[in-house]
């Protein structure tokens, strides 16, 4: 592996599957000047809590942090949409000097009075942390007065990376859990953790579980509600997707409330089916029919999906893909999903994977696959060129890297509008991959146009020949 654009200090964060080395260095602070694709603590906390639709989300800091996260995810709500507003204390120079607690308190009170949320999250930002505002005290005071939970989120941007933000979000949610009555929650009940209802995905998943005869108590956090989360400790099981974001909450809930958890993934055929089976197995002793229903759901879905996939596989067979996503667990599922399409993943990476995640990734991918932690545009570009893949899966920041190199792209991040989870999601994903990989435009892209010349020029002669036949 010779990538000229790799920073020496990052060599430990890159490895090749099957090359003998099996540990990757990760969960490190991003290298200064490397143009990391990562964000900050605030971003991590904000994306996890954001989909809670009936909460007031108030960013305590200068305007940027709120401006850049206004309506940032496609997290849908079936009811209130307060989360789609952008609220900020819009801290000014004066407050930076003299403290902004008063402005925070006034802002909180006026916003709660106006928008009547069921709870409020106050996000600390870099500046709030440096000037030492006692956000906790303000939140306690206001919460007590107005009678709703008002929770401080310790998300000062510089205090770690996005993972630390996930942790801050989990700590904030933990303060809500166990604060409301659990009457009416039966033994066949679950919470869905780690799904954010991008493009309505949690509705799909919830439907599967409900068909299995399970009661879904709380969505954490997609289409989430404050009151559901407050009583979520009454559920019999936490089903956790997205390895990084909500696992910590699942652990808290196990310790404090004795709620066991299962780790699942809703991406790809096997992982989706296995998720339903695993949950069914958990409830086997309470109701054996749950498994029967799960099997029926899978069988019904596969009846239509399998023939469609076969058709697409014929077209995509032999193509190659690169995957660079936020969480490692998603990468894991994507490798398997591509296999269903007859495609090979030759480069895989994540912003926030742990050592354990990367070990698992190594086990599922083919020897020779390059594995990277916290990459950057130069490195990613060099690897993409070297591996000469047909498609990159990533987020908005990776899209122009792929397009400038003349490769296909699939958005698998916050801003996607297409459901990629569940069986329907696998179908959407396959179609999306085909739509980009098979585009005629690659015949004209300078980097690739030398390879296939067929049909890329229309001389007058050929038109004439064609018409005279």
């Amino acid at each position, binding site marked *: 592996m010779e990538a000229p654009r790799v920073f020496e200090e990052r060599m430990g964060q890159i490895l090749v599957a099957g090359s003998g080395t099996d540990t990757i260095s990760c969960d490190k*602070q991003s290298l200064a*000047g490397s143009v990391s694709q990562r964000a900050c603590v*605030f971003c991590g906390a904000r994306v996890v809590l954001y989909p809670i639709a009936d909460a007031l989300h108030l960013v305590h800091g200068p305007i*940027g942090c709120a401006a850049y996260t206004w309506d940032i995810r496609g997290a849908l709500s079936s009811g209130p949409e307060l989360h789609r507003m*952008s609220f900020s204390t819009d801290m000014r120079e004066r407050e930076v000097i003299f403290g902004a607690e008063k402005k925070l308190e006034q802002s909180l009170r006026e916003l709660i009075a106006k928008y009547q949320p069921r709870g409020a999250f106050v996000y600390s930002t*870099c500046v709030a942390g440096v000037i030492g505002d006692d956000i906790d005290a303000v939140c306690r005071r206001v919460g007590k007065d107005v009678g709703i939970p008002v929770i401080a989120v310790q998300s000062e941007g510089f205090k770690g*990376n996005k993972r630390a933000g996930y942790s801050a979000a989990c700590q904030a949610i933990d303060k809500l859990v166990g604060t409301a009555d659990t009457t009416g929650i039966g033994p066949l009940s679950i919470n869905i953790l780690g799904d954010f209802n991008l493009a309505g995905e949690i509705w799909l998943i919830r439907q599967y579980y409900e068909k299995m005869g399970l009661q879904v108590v709380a969505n954490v956090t997609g289409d989430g509600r404050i009151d559901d989360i407050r009583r979520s400790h009454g559920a019999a099981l936490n089903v956790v997707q997205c390895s990084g974001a909500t696992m910590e909450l699942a652990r808290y809930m196990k310790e404090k409330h004795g709620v066991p958890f299962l780790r699942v993934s809703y991406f790809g055929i096997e992982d989706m089916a296995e998720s339903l089976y695993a949950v069914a197995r958990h409830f086997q002793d309470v109701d054996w029919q749950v498994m029967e229903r799960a099997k029926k759901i899978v069988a019904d879905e596969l009846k239509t999906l399998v023939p469609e996939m076969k058709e697409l596989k014929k077209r995509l067979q032999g193509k190659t893909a690169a995957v660079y996503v936020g969480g490692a667990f998603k990468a894991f599922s994507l490798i398997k999903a591509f296999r269903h399409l007859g495609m090979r993943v030759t480069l895989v990476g994540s912003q926030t994977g742990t050592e354990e995640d990367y070990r698992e990734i190594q086990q599922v991918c083919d020897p020779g696959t390059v594995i990277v932690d916290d990459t950057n545009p130069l490195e990613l570009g060099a690897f993409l060129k070297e591996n000469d893949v047909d498609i990159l899966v990533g987020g908005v920041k990776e899209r122009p890297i792929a397009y400038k190199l003349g490769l296909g792209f699939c958005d698998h991040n916050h801003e996607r509008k297409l459901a990629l989870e569940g069986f329907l999601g696998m179908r959407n994903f396959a179609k999306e991959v085909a739509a980009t990989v098979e585009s005629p435009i690659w015949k004209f892209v300078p980097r690739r146009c030398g390879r296939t010349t067929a049909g890329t020029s229309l001389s007058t002669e050929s038109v004439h020949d064609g018409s005279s036949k």
Partner: protein
Amino acid sequence: MIKTSVAKAREPWVSTANPCHQCRPLGAMVAFQGVEGCVPFLHGSQGCATYMRRYLISHFREPVDIASSSVSEKEAVLGGGPSLRKGLRNVTEKYGASVVGVATTCLTETTGEDLGMLVREWDKEVAERPLQGGNPEIVTVPCPSYDGSHIDGFHGANRALVAHFAEACSPHGGMALFPNFVSPADLRHLREMVGAFGIPLTLVPDYADRLDGPALVETDPLPAGGTTMADMRALPGCRVSVELGRTIPEKLSAATWLEQEWKVPRRTLGLPIGIRETDAFMAILEELSGIETPEAWQAERGRLIDACVDAHKYLAGRTAVVFGDEDMVAGIVSFLTEIGMKTTLVATGGKSGRLAPVIERVTRTFLEEMPRVLEDSDFRDVEECAEARMADLFIGHSKGYKLARRHDIPLVRVGFPLHDRFGGQRLLHVGWRGALDLLDTIVNAILEKRQDDSPVGYSYL
């Protein structure tokens, strides 16, 4: 008699909801993109760079690399110098940057980082341990995000660039043009306009090619294009400097700096949007070149006026709410006024304090009542104004879409950011050509709404 009414937008709200502007460093990052060989660099937390990249990529649909010193908790306490130096070294060596444009952020401003001292430390370090391929020029600009908006960051960076590079040189008769935060298409059109008069031009900044580049065989980590260092060094030799934008504060104005330090005569105009503002710009080009506006360009003006005549009855008395960056909205309001529309409300997140007089100036003699002007405002303020709820048309950036949707008012998208439409980087606002594009879009938005709302479904409109 014109009644002026500048509302105090911030009252009675303490908080801000659905902002109309972005934070200061973002504008600096855009300006630095407009310099050849430059990598924009943020001295602050990693998140700022990533957020701004995402925000800019969603508008320009181009790779936008912004480096960061990735200041951590430890460095926030002990000082970010080591991170900054390491970052500068990494970015120079990997990107081959010849210029690094460094902006501070709210974090490093609040912790009290001294940019001057940090750069001296860097100079010392590279004097002892030079970089392979030469040491880059380091241009710095303070960008406390809690003071001002992205537009202040843009102008501040521009002025910092000029002040950094300008040096004594012999007069060369060229023209310095400070175009303001406009689209790559606008920058290209400005070059073309000046070029038509044969005037040598230095455009600062010029991100037309770097933020709207072609598909290439080999992608360069540093996209080609941008204002060259040599051209910026020679700025003091210019015959004149033209600054587009009447609301630029003097302390952020590159043209004012050139005038004060190098006695380069400054001409300040509005953004050349619409008929009168473009006429004023073309008049300066005529004056400088001593030649008349070439025929092909006069024909463009002719077609614009002709189209305005064709359109005037569709537009007569129609009301508009305009929001966005101050100089952009001033230009748009000026044009709307010329085509017979009535702007009732003007809103901006900026707070230069200069917008209201400019709006007064461009609407005077046309409108009986001056539009209401909201400075330092957000979209909640806009929604609370009756003018917004009753308007026929919204004109502004994408962030006004939610409001437009809620009140079922068509939104004509201009300026920055354009996150919900395609081609924001190619949107042409300036010149007679830009005005004609705008006119078509505005008229069609009104016709489309009329057609959709009509039970008849007219085929001819």
